[in-house]
């Protein structure tokens, strides 16, 4: 084992912190009714919820990338009051309780909201649709992508970009071939964080999109509902969600190492 490079007194609070997370998860795993586990998690309601969650979280993550990459680039390469204000605004969903986000979304996209009638004219019915779930997830998850990518872009600096520009590369070429590859580890971890946040989204969804099996009832909503009817199913499904989260975190770690290994 290598020499510890941290003061020894840090170990106790570090261990307590780890236990605070580990004990509840372990306790939940121990309380699972394993003999009925497969029937509990493979009921139609459960699989509907799982697939809906995976589908909506994937689409929402794509939307986060579509809007979040340009936002992060703008924020990382500009300074001044306007940039600070824009950053505070974009990161606002990080500090808002999701239910507040849901209420705000109703005021904007709801049937009687600011944009509701315009959307109606366009033939878009957002209320109680899967689209509403995707909007809610994108709203709460995008800041995670923006914050990680902006940090990576700032850390990478502008040296290579400047050199590429002096060598005759246009702004788009520089962005595509220099800026993004340098910030790739940040982009990947930001994407995975955003996906995980989409998967766990609850408050904004139940407030804004409602709860209907196969349409708007994602896995967290199904777990919350099962708590009322069949607590054993709620525990079993929670474990499924933990498993998905663990896979996602594992993905971040392995990817980050391979990427940093490949970066000069």
């Amino acid at each position, binding site marked *: 084992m290598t020499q510890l490079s941290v003061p020894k007194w840090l170990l106790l609070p570090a261990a307590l912190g780890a236990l605070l997370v580990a004990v509840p998860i372990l306790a939940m795993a121990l309380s699972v009714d394993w003999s009925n586990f497969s029937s509990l998690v493979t009921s139609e309601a459960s699989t509907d919820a799982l697939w809906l969650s995976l589908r909506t979280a994937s689409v929402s993550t794509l939307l986060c990338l579509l809007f979040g990459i340009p936002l992060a680039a703008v924020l990382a390469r500009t300074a001044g009051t306007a940039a600070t204000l824009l950053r505070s605004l974009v990161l606002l969903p990080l500090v808002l309780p999701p239910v507040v986000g849901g209420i705000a979304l109703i005021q904007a996209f709801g049937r009687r909201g600011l944009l509701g009638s315009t959307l109606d004219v366009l033939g878009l019915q957002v*209320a109680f649709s899967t689209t509403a779930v995707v909007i809610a997830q994108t709203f709460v998850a995008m800041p995670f992508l923006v914050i990680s990518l902006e940090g990576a872009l700032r850390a990478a600096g502008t040296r290579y970009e400047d050199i590429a520009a002096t060598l005759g590369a246009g702004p788009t070429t520089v962005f595509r071939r220099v800026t993004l590859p340098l910030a790739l580890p940040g982009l990947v971890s930001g994407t995975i964080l955003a996906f995980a946040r989409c998967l766990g989204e609850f408050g904004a969804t139940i407030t804004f999109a409602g709860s209907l099996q196969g349409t708007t009832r994602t896995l967290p909503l199904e777990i919350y509902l099962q708590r009322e009817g069949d607590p054993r199913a709620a525990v079993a499904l929670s474990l499924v969600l933990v498993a998905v989260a663990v896979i996602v975190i594992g993905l971040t770690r392995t990817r980050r190492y391979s990427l940093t290994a490949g970066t000069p």
Partner: protein
Amino acid sequence: MSFLRTNHHSYAVRSWSAVAGLLLLAACGIGAGADADTNSTARQQSSASTPDRTLTVFAAASLQKPFTQIGKDFESAHPGVTVRFSFGGSSGLVTQLSDGAPADVLATANEATMDQATAADLVSGQPTPFVSNTLQIVVPQDNPVGISSLTDLTKPAAKVVVCAPAVPCGAATLAVERAAGIDLKPASEEQSVTDVLGKVRSGQADAGLVYLTDVAGAAGDVKGIDFPEAKAAVNTYPIARLRDARDAALATQFMAAVTGPQGQDVLKAAGFAAP
């Protein structure tokens, strides 16, 4: 080097002040708790003859307004007594109690959930029915799709929101659907009756099924429409003393206040009917 050091120093100062800020916040939280303690001590001193007593009541969400009122009346009739409420979905409350939440009295929104509490050996004695509640159709004030009966809820244009079958109001909804011989296609099955009301109140939904008392509580924003099939699902609310009650005598007194004439008046004013 010295530049670096100052930089480090100011960074450290900043992080420590952040930590100090957090600790201060935490202290405020603790302080608030301590405040409550001082209050009760003060109360105890002011009425030295009667010792300070606290009663904890777990009650269905629909009881929030009348029970808060009954609690206030009870406190003024019993000096030195503090009544604390936890309002929530009935099944959720029973789950909390079986997980060991400390409480003296339980009032649920239907008999099925009280039966669960009895089966889990949480209740002491026989639960007493004290009010009943029926479903009503709720529509926004302007009734955009012109709902006037239960069958109107099956109109394709109507966005209807109901409770999920797992919660008491959803079970009642299923019962009236069966009685009317219709099959609702809701846009959403909500977790609680207040969520249904909220979606109708905000105009997100065109109609919903909630309790009469919920409509009464939101008068002005929404309209209630009676329907004959509602008789198929009259919810009776039982109240019971809990086996682990710390103050059994006080719990019994509170139950008497709820079932007594004064409590019944408050409940009737909120839209509840006799059991």
